[in-house]
């Protein structure tokens, strides 16, 4: 068992692609967590706000955050499926 575990770890270490995918998923989940908190704060504000213009603005922000979270989850699913290559950035 010990040997097999060692070999698995070695395989993971050598598999740079997999490591990069895991790192990307971890980064996205970090941002998704912050977005979830932002969404929670906006919902609280929405419950407390009475001004119709402000209510509209908060509702719009909620829609945006919701869409961003949805996009983030789709991205994580895509990486896990291996359907999408790792993006380097700009």
């Amino acid at each position: 068992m010990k040997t097999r575990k060692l070999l698995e770890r070695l395989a993971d270490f050598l598999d740079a692609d997999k490591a990069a995918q895991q790192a990307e998923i971890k980064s996205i989940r970090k941002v998704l967590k912050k977005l979830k908190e932002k969404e929670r704060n906006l919902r609280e504000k929405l419950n407390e706000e009475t001004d119709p213009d402000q209510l509209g603005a908060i509702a719009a922000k909620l829609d945006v955050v919701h869409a961003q979270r949805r996009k983030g989850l789709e991205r994580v699913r895509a990486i896990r499926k291996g359907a999408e290559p790792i993006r380097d950035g700009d």
Partner: protein
Amino acid sequence: MPKPSRLLLPAALILLAYGFWNSAEFTRIAAGIAVFLFGMMALEEGFKAFTGGTLESLLRATTDRLWKSIGFGIVTTTLMQSSSLVSLITISFLSAGMIGLGAGIGIIIGSNLGTTSGAWLIAGLGLKVDISAYAMPLLVFGVIGLLQQSKPLKGAGYGLIGLGFLFLGIHYMKEGFEAFGSSFDLSAYAVPGYPGLFLFALIGLIVTVIMQSSHATLVLTITALAAGQITYENALALAIGANMGTTITALIGAVSANVEGRRLAAAHFIFNVTTGVVAIALIHPLRWVVDELAILLGIAAQDYMLKLALFHTLFNLLGLLLITPFVDRLVGFLERVVQVVPAAAEQPRYLNPSALEVPAAAVEAVRREVEHLYENAFGLIAHGLSLRRHVIRSEQPLASAVETTRRIMPLDVDDIYEDKIKGLHSAIIEFISQAQSRELPAAAADELYALRRASRAIVEAVKGMKHLHKNLSRYGLSANPAIRRQYDDLRLRTAGVLREIETLRAQPPDAVTMLSLDDVKLGLEKFDRHLNATLDELIRQRRITAKVATSLMNDGGYVHEIGRNLIDMAQIVFVPRTPDRQIAQQLALDEKDIERVLGDEHR
């Protein structure tokens, strides 16, 4: 009649050729100096390979306090054996606004002390062993490093070659002076007392200005002293002169620098001249201290080379102790005395050629300059909307500020564009081109490309404002309430984008902050659709003419253009290039996503 300055080089070459013809010893000494100087250049080249991200983070972490800046100057100069490289990097980061003037002065003070380590190395080691034996393997390994593809290995190669040539240069100078001594006794021309002090200090200053290296002058002095060609007294004076001469090089270099670079060069001059004057005034007490310290450190009474190194360290340390308590006052003095010369057209603040030496400094200089360009554009757009900048930046409701506008601010957009926008944008583009012509890491090249897009986006936003302002001036305070209302909405929407960007600037630069720009994008799309629907309704109700409606549609387009360009700019300039930014770019809503959100809203 040719200018005297143009005759200098040919005259120097002829004199040197004459010297080479007549004296083999002179040839050896001159070759030693040339090889030494080449070694210093190679060493500098080697260290440049390692500057950038590492140095930048180190600088930021170690220059928030004066004592840390001084320490940074001492350590880096000791390691690099080049105060000119440290000065260059300091001016580079200062020009880019990455460090303040106080920190820069601290680094220069520290660098002066760090440079004295060279004298110790040469006096303590260089002249006591066969230094050329160490040079050869260094040269071999250095060339092997140079032939590698990897940048760090190439840099290491340059470093080793630099060290090797440094050692060879010292060896040739040493041999040259020893051979020289057998046929000519320079020490017979020694001048004792204060006349000798002033004369040799002046010689040291002139030689340093010619060779542009106080290190080289010191090596020359130590090797001449070792061969008995100059007296200990005159060698001390040469060391003082070399210290002062090094500032002339900095002053000459500062002529083309920005105001911060000139202030630093002035500080360098003040520090070194003060140190030199104090050293000359206190020469005898200092000599006494050197003699006493030499006994404590176990330096032989006749070991004048090591005592010279000790003197060099001591008088620089004295200068450090004298000036350090007054650095803040020096900064205040320099900021009052060395001022920006106002120009008719806005000049770049950060695009100093010295910033090109270090990729990280070049990128930061461009980023700050684009931010500077944005500040100017912000002012122009705010005035174009007939709103004050401080109102947009405040918490005051924009709707009431817009509704209560009684006067359209006069604005010559073309004039301001020429003065404050076009020149800066051109300077940014030119600077980026120069930076990209040098070898840059991929990340720096990408960032410069993005910043060029950001600069262009600002210019496009300003051009949009130029078009918008034409009709704003005409219809902005229209007696027709329907028209007034529409133009108020256009002003409000544009001011809203500016305010959102200001809010973003005040927040921590992370992925969530960047993603908040999507709110602004959605707002712009909604506004665009709402405007078209509203205009259709107003035409049907005959509250506005079709002609005015067309103007409003065009102006709505300009508002959209201004907003999108400012958002694109903000995503690049105000969100630093971190892994967070890359993730944010993946999650940011594109046009399809925004369509989807708007579609979901209507269900």
